[in-house]
């Protein structure tokens, strides 16, 4: 019978300044040195991190009321439309929204120099943002138009709410077609000219708890440089496993998180607007999760290495856009990080599109917060569905009745 801990045990040790906290990189060394059983006795928490473009991100804003009052039925922030079909002076700004006059892909490949993600970066950096709004006017909200400047301090609330972040695993994208394509995973040259991947591998939060034994509603996290929470499962949360040709489990895939936090605590170092050539605007989000080492099994997964974690290789030239993606191969993150993989007999240079150094920094910051007693673990009110729940995606059928 190995060690067992509760959230209360761990939080008591954090408060006493006695908790042993290692990053997801450091714990690998610890387990190599001492074995899982002994390491599980010693380690209380393992911290993870990831820093990449997460398109399903956005912010709920409350601007405060003007005199006379206005309902604000349409809202623009630096000319980027925000959704205002909710209560007066509330709006939701999404990371991929573009200004109405943006040339988009009309001059292919488009540059997407400024979008919702950039507005969020401007807000979090404390810069003034132009707020323009129109309304139809009511007896209680007579004002019909508004053009002013706001910033993060001048508005009531700014709540980052990201419906789908922190993908557990992601495709390694290649292009088997015969023309260059510009995708959300970057520019891919034809004939398997290059391969892009986008998780932090052994530092990546959900790869380190594939059974979702510790992650649920109320899990306290590092979000954009501040403290945030897991609000729910992310959209398209279909956790499962990727398996090799012999059906042996390689590692987790398919899980996502919905996360929430106060933008006023966050920093533009950890929320950065992104312009993805030929694809669109987005927001690069820094996110880190603490994994409480409840028992040996939790540690065993938290200590998985880049050699043991795999990404599926998928063709974004033809198969993915057609909606028929299949996994061409599985490559380990260790291979991907070396800079070259072999796909269909061809040697292909690789590049990450999410930042491993920033992921490492996040895991380190979270570790420091916990060691200093500034960050206690949030015990989930309810765990997220794991692979056992059998969740799977539905295809959208096109029909007219």
């Amino acid at each position, binding site marked *: 019978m190995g060690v067992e801990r509760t959230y209360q045990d761990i939080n008591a040790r954090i408060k006493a300044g006695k908790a042993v906290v290692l990053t997801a990189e450091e714990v690998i060394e610890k387990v190599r040195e001492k074995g899982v059983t002994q390491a599980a006795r010693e380690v209380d928490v393992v911290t993870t991190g990831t*820093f*990449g*473009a997460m398109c399903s991100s956005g912010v709920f804003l409350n601007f405060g009321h003007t005199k006379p009052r206005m309902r604000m039925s349409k809202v623009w922030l630096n000319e980027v439309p925000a959704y205002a079909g909710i209560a007066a002076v509330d709006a939701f700004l999404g990371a991929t929204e573009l200004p109405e006059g943006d040339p988009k892909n009309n001059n292919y490949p488009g*540059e997407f*120099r400024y979008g919702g993600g950039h507005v969020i970066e401007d807000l979090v950096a404390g810069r003034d943002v132009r707020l323009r709004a129109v309304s139809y006017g009511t007896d209680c909200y007579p004002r019909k138009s508004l053009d002013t400047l706001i910033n993060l301090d001048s508005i009531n609330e700014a709540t980052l709410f990201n419906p789908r972040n922190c993908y557990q695993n992601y495709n390694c994208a290649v292009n088997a077609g015969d023309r260059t394509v510009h995708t959300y995973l*970057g*520019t891919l*040259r034809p*004939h398997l*000219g*290059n*391969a*892009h991947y986008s998780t932090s591998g052994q530092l990546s939060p959900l790869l380190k708890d594939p059974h979702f034994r510790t992650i649920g509603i109320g899990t306290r996290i590092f979000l954009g440089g501040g403290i945030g929470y897991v609000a729910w499962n992310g959209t398209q949360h279909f956790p499962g496993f990727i398996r090799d040709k012999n059906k042996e489990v390689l590692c987790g895939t398919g899980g996502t998180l919905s996360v929430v936090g106060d933008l006023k605590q966050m920093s533009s170092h950890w929320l*950065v*607007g*992104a*312009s*993805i*050539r030929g694809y669109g605007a*987005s927001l*690069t989000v820094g996110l880190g999760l603490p994994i409480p080492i409840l028992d040996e099994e939790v540690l065993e997964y938290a200590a998985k290495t880049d050699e043991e974690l795999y990404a599926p290789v998928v063709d974004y030239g033809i198969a993915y856009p057609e909606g028929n993606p299949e996994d061409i191969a599985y490559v380990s993150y260790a291979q991907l*990080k*070396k*800079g070259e993989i072999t796909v269909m007999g061809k040697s292909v*240079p*690789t*590049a*990450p*599109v*999410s*930042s*491993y*150094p*920033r992921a*490492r920094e996040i895991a380190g910051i979270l570790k420091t917060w916990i060691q200093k007693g500034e960050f206690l673990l949030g015990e989930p009110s309810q765990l997220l569905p794991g692979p056992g729940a059998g969740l799977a995606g539905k295809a959208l059928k096109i029909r007219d009745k």
Partner: protein
Amino acid sequence: MAPEKIVLRFGAEKADKPVIYHLAKDYDLIINIVKASINPHKEGTMVLELTGERYAEGIAYLREQGISVHPLTTEVVRNEEKCTHCGACTVHCPTKALFIDRSSMEVRFNEDECVLCLMCVKICPVKAMEVKV
């Protein structure tokens, strides 16, 4: 006469044309190839120093061939504050001036190897690669 420094950029379909030969033979120019990155399947870039009476005619010839010609007054610099070390640029840099230090996974930029192809400027999602005139 001081040599003129220029940057040529041409598409994959132009990479097989013997333009340097024509510059020397037809326009009597002295050519020093400072940097070059040419691959039959990709866009090519060349930095040249040209000297000669018929310099302007030589440039006109290059432009007729569909090659873009720019004076070498620009350099590409990395904004260290903005760079997040994601690495997306590295695989697109033709000379490996941008590369990943595999131990730290940080992106390094060796400016001496840069041929001003500007691919990184187009690729970088956070606009950390800047053109300095």
